[in-house]
């Protein structure tokens, strides 16, 4: 009994000492999160010794943590640099890891600060998914989406939408979308339609990403309306554009974007933009406002 008590006391003292030492002599963060000991998927597959799926899960968890940590840490110089290698390793170890391909498609192509802005990595990852499961229409759809949303290439997007439509079990809205890409280019109606399809995705993070993109599209529409209003307000030559002057012309209050952050107005040009502090910053590259 006394020995057990002594053991417990020793352990408590050791923990107390550790806490004191960590406070008194803070150690430099070794930055282990940024380390990737093995980069070769083939080597890793050998090392995993039949436990490939579990190793893939570990890399998936690391990818999620890496992404979340980098997204929160705005001051980091090289953000998201391990996201692609981690997803590449996870999908090499488990070629059927559906969600890793789709996560990569969405977030690798997203522009900074929300992602690394590497659509070519997203396409490479999805092509790997197609090699593993050639009949999975979602991967073709996602490549089309990357071409459309990030690379602004509606012709390539249409071709991939057509390939997606040819896969077994593909939904029937893919072919009309492909046709719309070719006739209308990068219009907001097609974007809105595609993101609305994503709203019914089974993963919550995909739905959240779709909601975010739809809010950005609404923002672009609002900016068009605001700029049209500003252009219609008469002003003296050289007079700066201000919300105050626009209020005199009938604007009731400083307009806010759908996330609740006030828009910013360029006094020289009268251009309206979202604030850098807005959750919706940065907006996607300008699309024509044809609707």
């Amino acid at each position: 009994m006394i020995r057990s008590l002594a053991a417990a006391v020793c352990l408590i003292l050791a923990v107390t000492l550790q806490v004191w030492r960590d406070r008194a002599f803070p150690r430099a963060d070794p930055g282990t999160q940024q380390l990737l000991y093995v980069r070769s998927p083939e080597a890793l597959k050998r090392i995993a010794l039949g436990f490939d799926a579990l190793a893939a899960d570990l890399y998936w968890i690391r990818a999620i943590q890496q992404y979340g940590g980098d997204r929160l840490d705005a001051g980091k110089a090289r953000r998201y640099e391990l996201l692609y290698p981690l997803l590449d390793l996870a999908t090499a170890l488990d070629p059927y890891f559906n969600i890793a391909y789709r996560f990569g498609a969405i977030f690798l192509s997203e522009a900074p600060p929300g992602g690394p802005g590497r659509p070519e990595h997203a396409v490479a990852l999805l092509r790997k998914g197609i090699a593993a499961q050639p009949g999975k229409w979602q991967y073709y759809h996602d490549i089309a989406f990357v071409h459309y949303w990030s690379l602004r290439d509606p012709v390539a997007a249409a071709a991939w939408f057509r390939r997606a439509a040819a896969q077994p079990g593909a939904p029937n809205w893919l072919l009309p979308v492909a046709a719309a890409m070719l006739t209308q280019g990068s219009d907001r109606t097609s974007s809105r339609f595609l993101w609305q399809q994503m709203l019914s995705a089974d993963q919550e993070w995909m739905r959240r990403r779709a909601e975010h993109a739809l809010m950005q599209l609404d923002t672009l529409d609002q900016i068009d309306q605001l700029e049209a209003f500003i252009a219609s307000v008469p002003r003296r030559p050289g007079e700066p554009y201000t919300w105050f002057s626009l209020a005199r012309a009938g604007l009731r209050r400083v307009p806010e974007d759908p996330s609740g952050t006030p828009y910013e107005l360029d006094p020289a040009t009268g251009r309206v933009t979202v604030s850098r502090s807005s959750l919706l910053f940065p907006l996607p590259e300008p699309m024509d406002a044809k609707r």
Partner: protein
Amino acid sequence: MRAVSHIAVNVFRESVRDRVPYNLVLFAVLLIGSSYLLAQLTAGQDVKIIKDLGLAATSVFGLFIAVFIGIGLVSKEVERRSIYSLLSKPISRPQFITGKYAGLVLTLAVNVGVMTLAMYAVLGYMTWIESAEFKASWETPGADPALLKAMLLIFVELMLVTAIALFFSTFSSPILSAAMTFGLYVAGNFNADLRNFEQVVDSRAAAWLARGLYHVLPDLSSFDIKTQVVHGLPVSAGYVAGSVAYGALYIAALLLAATVIFSRRDFK
């Protein structure tokens, strides 16, 4: 047959006395603890990861039991000199080997069975608490009966590893037996590479040697259907039956070889 069953039951009792079932508690804690933690970390992939973790843990825990108990099955009796009193009884040497093997397989069967139940309990609980909307994102049902196929092949693989350990145990020291069993386990997992060796070397002789090794070494990678089962990919009954039959024949060969070696050993 009575002698075999007596030896088997004693091996099982000894493993209980050696506190082998403690690993079941560790397994349960691992699964239940991770089911809570993973929900926070994995962006909706917790059920997939619980399945991967459950299958991998069953395999790893079983591997350690098979190797570390298997290597001592015969050598321990020799070291303790209890082999003399055993063999002086009406027990033949093949009966002794078969009984020892059956006892450890019984331990493994209980172990794998309880782990399977624990895994289904955790998966059943997760299925019960999750919303229908969230469950729609799962590739396969939570408590998917197809997992039993993977568990069956894991069990056959463990039976094969036990037979390897027992085979080495009949003529080698425990440390050497453990090293050789682990060596064969690793080689058995790389077996598929040997089959395709002619694609990477020009030498015909080397390719034939590799092909020969492919057939002689245990093909342990063929028992690994964990990924397919977790993703709901089809695994035919024919493949499972073929793998079980291959395992059974390989085990029979190892046990016969172990019996032959053990029968020739002189304990004077």
